[in-house]
């Protein structure tokens, strides 16, 4: 917890080469009553400094487990990292002891959780909780920490922070609580913020406010932001890039408009089709249910729900490849990407 333990060379953003966070070939499995299940299977992605990346996928697609692994929060011994690496600033966190990740947490990497009520300590005042990190990590005095907490609360748009700094979490509304959570996460100016479903537990009207707050803060701070969500709508205007996960694998990745408008994987096309757009009478759901991770289908795990599925899909597992005739950054893991794209244009 001492300052001296802060392990990274504090290179100014931009002078470093390579991405800020690089997840490579990460595989994580969990022990369950009926055998091990592979929650994350060979996931790779990069997050550059100052970039906003949306990790999308339905429940059980492995997006939260990926975040937990990065933060060193994987429940042990049930959860196990089977392979791959998670590098922050070029240092593989999985190689280092937990204490290394702990020392990075707060100062370099921070996390925002889904349910802001259960992620705030119910027995302490919010001001204490926001200032606590600073007091612990930087040895700031109690009074300074309180001033800092008020300033942070002001920045995240909590009205009358001078009064509310001494309130307890349960005295705040859901949206305000999430703002407190954001204030806590950002109080040390981290370079990477991972937000795990930050708006899922909130009202629809509040969701947009929190999203735009995160986007504004991201612009001001220049931090990298990873938005994990199953709600494609809320991140559309905020994220630069999208990573789509299905059954523990990345199925499509690329600039967010590319993925949204020119989906090259049947799953992402299906997800877009299930969104209300206003000019259609009924929504088109994806048929079937998410696969049981203990008994994944052979080949492409999406094939039982896919209209394009052929025998090849049932036997051969697709790997990420550039989407045909699309910008280079757009990758898809589908044998029939050409047909999917052609179908989308129609």
């Amino acid at each position, binding site marked *: 917890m001492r300052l001296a333990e802060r392990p990274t060379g504090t290179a100014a953003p931009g002078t470093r080469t390579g991405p800020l966070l690089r997840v490579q070939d990460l595989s994580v499995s969990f022990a369950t009553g009926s055998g091990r299940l592979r929650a994350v299977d060979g996931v790779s992605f990069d997050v550059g400094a100052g970039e906003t990346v949306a990790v999308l996928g339905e429940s059980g697609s492995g997006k939260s487990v990926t975040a937990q692994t990065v933060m060193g929060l994987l429940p042990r011994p049930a959860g196990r990292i089977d392979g791959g690496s998670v590098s922050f600033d070029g240092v593989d966190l999985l190689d280092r002891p937990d204490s290394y990740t702990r020392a990075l947490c707060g100062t370099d990497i921070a996390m925002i959780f889904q349910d802001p009520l259960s992620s705030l*300590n119910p027995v302490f005042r919010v001001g204490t909780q926001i200032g606590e990190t600073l007091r*612990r*990590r930087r040895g700031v005095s109690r009074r300074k920490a309180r001033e800092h907490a008020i300033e942070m609360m002001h920045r995240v*748009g909590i009205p009358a922070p001078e009064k*509310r700094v001494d309130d307890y979490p349960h005295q705040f509304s859901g949206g305000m609580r999430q703002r407190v959570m954001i204030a806590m996460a950002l109080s040390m100016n981290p370079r990477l913020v991972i937000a795990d479903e930050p708006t899922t537990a909130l009202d629809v009207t509040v969701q947009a*406010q929190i999203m735009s707050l995160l986007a504004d803060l991201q612009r001001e701070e220049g931090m990298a932001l990873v938005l994990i969500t199953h709600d494609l709508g809320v991140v559309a205007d905020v994220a630069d890039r999208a990573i789509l996960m299905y059954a523990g694998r990345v199925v499509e990745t690329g600039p967010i408009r590319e993925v949204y408008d020119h989906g090259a994987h049947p799953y992402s096309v299906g997800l877009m089709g299930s969104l209300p757009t206003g000019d259609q009478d009924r929504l088109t759901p994806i048929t079937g249910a998410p696969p049981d991770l203990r008994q994944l289908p052979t080949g492409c795990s999406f094939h039982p729900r896919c209209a394009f599925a052929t025998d090849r899909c049932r036997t051969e597992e697709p790997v990420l490849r550039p989407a045909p005739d699309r910008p280079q950054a757009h990758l898809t893991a589908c044998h029939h990407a050409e047909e999917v794209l052609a179908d989308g244009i129609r």
Partner: protein
Amino acid sequence: MTGGTELIETVAAPMADAVPERVRRGRGWGPRIWIPLVVVAFYVLAAIFGPMIVTFDPVATDTANRLLPPLSHRDDGSLVLFGTDQVGQDLLAQTMQGARVSMLVGVATLLLAGFIGVVVGVVSGYFGRWADAVLMRVADIQLTFPGILLAILIAAVIGQSVLNVVLILAISGWVTFARVTRGQVLATKNREYVDATRTLGASNWHIIRTCILPACTAPILVIATLDIGSVILAEAALSFLGLGTPASTPSWGVTIANGRNLLSSAWWVSTIPGICLAILVVSFGILGDALRDRFDPKMKGI
């Protein structure tokens, strides 16, 4: 951060004032809490100040005034409220001195047992694995012995003194604390705010101090209140059997034992400290029950 804030400001500002009203609701201290609390407070005051007012001398004898019934007068005209025993000692002084010893033993035992129990519970609940397995098996083994039997065994080995009584009772009392703490730790350690604290770089010790222990205080307080009655009772039982406090420090158990042979002729020697003991134990019991309902409404009626 402009548009959104203004919108919220108008909504949230009046709410900020209204919230504390809502929070205060349902936090009353009903008669089930304050009546036993008053009784306990009375005992505490009597135990602290009583022996200062009515001094008790364990070796003084006044055979001329032996076995006086309650509310009678000595030769010199002074009132003996609770009567006198077989050597003419004032039972009121003896009872208040006994209250002092009994409550001191009770509180000291709970502090010691609570400390051991909380440490064991936190270690086994938070760190788990082999520490959990070993500590909880030790607790299981401990529970297979009847408490009083274990206490008698240890007392017979290490001898009589107030400190030894505390040790003996703490050894047989820590398991409850350990189990309750462990359960609470297990329930708390996977809560999201613990993870959130961890993602801000907190050490295990910091998490235990700020997240785990505060969550344990309410159940531990309830257990302590429920337990103190039985600890006082156990101390009296040990003393009654001659294995507790030495005769020179008269706890209630010693006084009750002294009057045992006189029950047919001088009932008050045993009965009055017995009644005092019963009232205190019952008060603690009711208080503990009420506190449990107050802090853990889900357990109500169990």
